[in-house]
């Protein structure tokens, strides 16, 4: 095995938490609000179904192949050639999605704070920092997650608390005014974010207590769900109908905070904390990419390819969309099908193929036994 570190399933859950919410509370509330309007807080619940599903599917696949990541066992399931092709597709997919994430983060920072700084500087600085973390390996990522995630969540909680005085419960009424359909349409964004839980396929082989992996995976999805619902609810109760008009509603909410005329204008602190969350998200995707590449190409150690892939990531991030508007449009529409297909449909298919094959093998096995039994 290339990765020699071991993490506990609790650490895996902690890594996955910012992996979803770091950018899930940036652009997604606006996407959800555009479709679901006043019921935007219900949409993450539909999205979480995909989260639970993918955790379950990945865990079952893991039980079939305890020591391998998805890149490795896809060869076993659908044959060496197809498996390698699938592996390549997955690697390019992770390259692309990582580029999108880095680009989202860069656009956010440049658009809100450092207007004149070239985007490439922001992107490169973050990729450089993440490269150091990835070089340290899975254990280092887990440990940095354990340090930063409590801080990120604590500060998120503080933002929500500080806004309590400005919330107006009436803004969420009437509930389900236009039926359930808008919420389901609005769930497209959260669903594609929840499908990123496929990342645990890269971490499950390295757990020190794999039997708890399922439980902690589900707990992680639940925690993300709670955070997303509360975030959506808070922005809804604060901004009401104009939520869909704002590009980053949570950032605007943060700018709105004013407690006792002292705790105000806190958006820069929010940004600083956000960066920690985004760092963790980019790191784990980066790690999955690097690990997958080294497993596909059968390299003995992934450390030498970290920096070159980092360079590639910066380029993909810059190339992925010509401007923020196209990026947002992509994320609200075609990306949903793209992400869901790659991260939910394909793993489920792999599982089904595997189970079917096993059944066939068992059948053939009993048949041949029966024949040989007859002969004797």
């Amino acid at each position, binding site marked *: 095995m290339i990765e020699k570190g071991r993490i506990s399933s609790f650490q895996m859950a902690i890594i996955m938490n910012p992996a979803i919410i770091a950018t899930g509370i940036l652009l997604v509330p606006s996407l959800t609000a555009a479709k679901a309007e006043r019921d935007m807080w219900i949409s993450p619940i539909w999205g979480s179904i995909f989260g639970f599903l993918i955790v379950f599917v990945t865990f079952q696949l893991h039980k079939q192949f305890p020591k391998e990541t998805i890149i490795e066992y896809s060869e076993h399931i659908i044959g060496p050639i197809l498996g390698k092709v699938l592996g390549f597709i997955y690697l390019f997919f992770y390259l692309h999605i990582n580029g999108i994430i880095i680009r989202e983060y860069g656009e956010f920072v440049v658009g809100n704070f450092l207007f004149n700084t070239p985007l490439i500087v922001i992107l490169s600085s973050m990729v450089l*920092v993440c490269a150091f973390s990835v070089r340290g390996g899975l254990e280092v990522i887990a440990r940095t*997650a354990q340090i*930063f995630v409590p801080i990120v969540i604590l500060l998120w909680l503080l933002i929500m608390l500080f806004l309590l005085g400005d919330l107006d419960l009436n803004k969420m009424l009437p509930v389900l005014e236009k039926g359930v359909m808008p919420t389901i349409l609005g769930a497209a964004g959260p669903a594609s974010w929840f499908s990123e839980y496929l990342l645990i396929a890269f971490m499950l082989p390295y757990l020190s207590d794999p039997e708890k992996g399922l439980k902690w995976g589900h707990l992680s999805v639940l925690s993300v769900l709670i955070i997303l619902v509360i975030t959506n609810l808070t922005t809804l109760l604060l901004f009401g109908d104009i939520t869909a008009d704002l590009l980053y509603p949570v950032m605007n909410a943060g700018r709105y905070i004013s407690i006792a005329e002292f705790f105000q*204008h806190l958006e820069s602190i929010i940004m600083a904390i956000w*960066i920690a969350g985004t760092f963790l998200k980019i790191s784990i995707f980066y790690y999955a990419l690097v690990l997958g590449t080294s497993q596909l190409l059968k390299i003995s150690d992934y450390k030498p390819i970290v920096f070159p892939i980092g360079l590639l990531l910066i380029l993909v991030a810059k190339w992925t969309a010509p401007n923020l508007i196209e990026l947002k449009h992509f994320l609200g529409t075609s990306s949903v099908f793209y992400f869901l297909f790659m991260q939910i449909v394909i793993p489920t298919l792999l599982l089904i193929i595997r189970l079917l094959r096993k059944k066939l093998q068992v059948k053939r096995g009993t048949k041949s036994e029966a024949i040989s039994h007859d002969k004797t």
Partner: protein
Amino acid sequence: MARKWRKLKKLQDLLLKQEPIQAVESQNRINQQPNSQDKLATSLDTNISKLQKIYENCSDVIFHNFIFGGTDQAFLIYIEGLSNIEELNDKVLTPLMENVKIDDSTKQIDRFKTILQKKISVSKIQEVLTYPDIIYQISSGNPVILVDQMSNGYAVGLAKWEKRSIEEPSAESVIRGPREGFIESIGVNTALIRRKIKSPKLKMEEVKIGRLTKTAVIVAYIDGVANKTLIEEVKNRLNRIETDTILDSEYIEEFIEDNPYSPFPQTLNTERPDVASAYLSEGHVVILVDGSPFSLVAPITLYSLLQASEDYYNRPMLTTAIRWLRYLFVIITLLLPSVYVAVLTYHHEMVPTTLLISMAASREPIPFPALVEALLMEIMFEILREAGIRLPKQIGSAVSIVGALVIGQAAVDAGIVSATMVMVVAVTGIASFAIPHYNVGMSLRMLRFPMLFLAGFLGLLGISLGVIMIVTHLCTLRSFGVPYLSPMAPMQGDDMKDVMFRLPRWAHNTRPHLTGKYNKYRQASNLKPSAEKGEE
């Protein structure tokens, strides 16, 4: 002029031509077989002439010729100033020079031994068989007796020299708690630890490191509590060292640490025997170095470096609050100047309006941008700090007056720096001194310069990236295999009782996870005090 040049050239050639001295075989292996040519000869003249050649031009090595037992030639070799002369004369020379009547049938060596056992009233006598041993014993202050027709000498344990008295360690003073500190002499140091830990399970293994200094380095651990792999690892790393001099425990520290490029120390150094004993009982290994009052503790985590010994001698609630304050100090030391620069330069909306206006007003006459001003003040502060250490005590107070008046007031009045910047730098400096261990404080202080630059270039984004890089580095760091940031990451819930808080003593049932896994329980579990329990 030309002649001078030619002379220099000649000297240079000579030096370059000189053959490098063959490295003397290192003498720090614990179990090493003695070389055959080092053994003492039977003839006294051979031995003495050889020793005199070795100690050529050493005027402080005394070779004293006397008659042993009334009949034999003998030499007494010792170093002036290192041995106890009165005892030497009384207890050794006087009895040995007496006429001793023993049967002729006894062998010479038996005669020798009998005389020694009967006559010399010194409790520590060691037999020496090789020249290196003799040299070591003489250098350690133990006089050596060589007798004719004997191929073994005896070293008498009469080492005594002037040493510092035991006083309160200056770098780790406490308000409440023991005030003893280690001194330079290793015998006294081991004694201090032995006084605290009376169990025979406290093992002290000795290694001699350093070709020239042959420093005695003692590895202390408690058998049955400390992890055996850890002990092996420490001993292996010590045995690897091949160098000329070991003058301080810092030399050892540099040779055995996990990551020499990290700004953070991976062993703890302490001058206090109670701290060393506490760590020993938790399963750590303590390394004592002769000639240095600072002992090394391995392995450690970042949190050990942020604890003061006084934490354990004061009430738990107070200590918990002070611990949290200390973590705040760490953040202030690292981040305050950079945050100030970042907010002033990039994030003007963060400052409350009235404060912003008054800061703008105070910065009107300042010619420098915020980053340059911050760097200037920080460097000034570092100069003051270094100067304060070097100056003799009498001028020390003058320095503080100069610092306060000149730097503080006059610079502000002259319009070179703004008042808020002086305050920021002063608060940072004081916060960094509040960190108990000096070396961690230094690391953090040095790290704030790169953070200043990052803040100056990218604002709060730069600071975030800097903090992330430091945390990532800390997460990759290990001290003798123990992750540097445990018990926070990887999380050990049980150990948080000593990191986040200081739970009362009756709650500390188990030893910390990573060193004390071997022997988990250290006290009974029902020790919480209350009024009723006293009646049981």
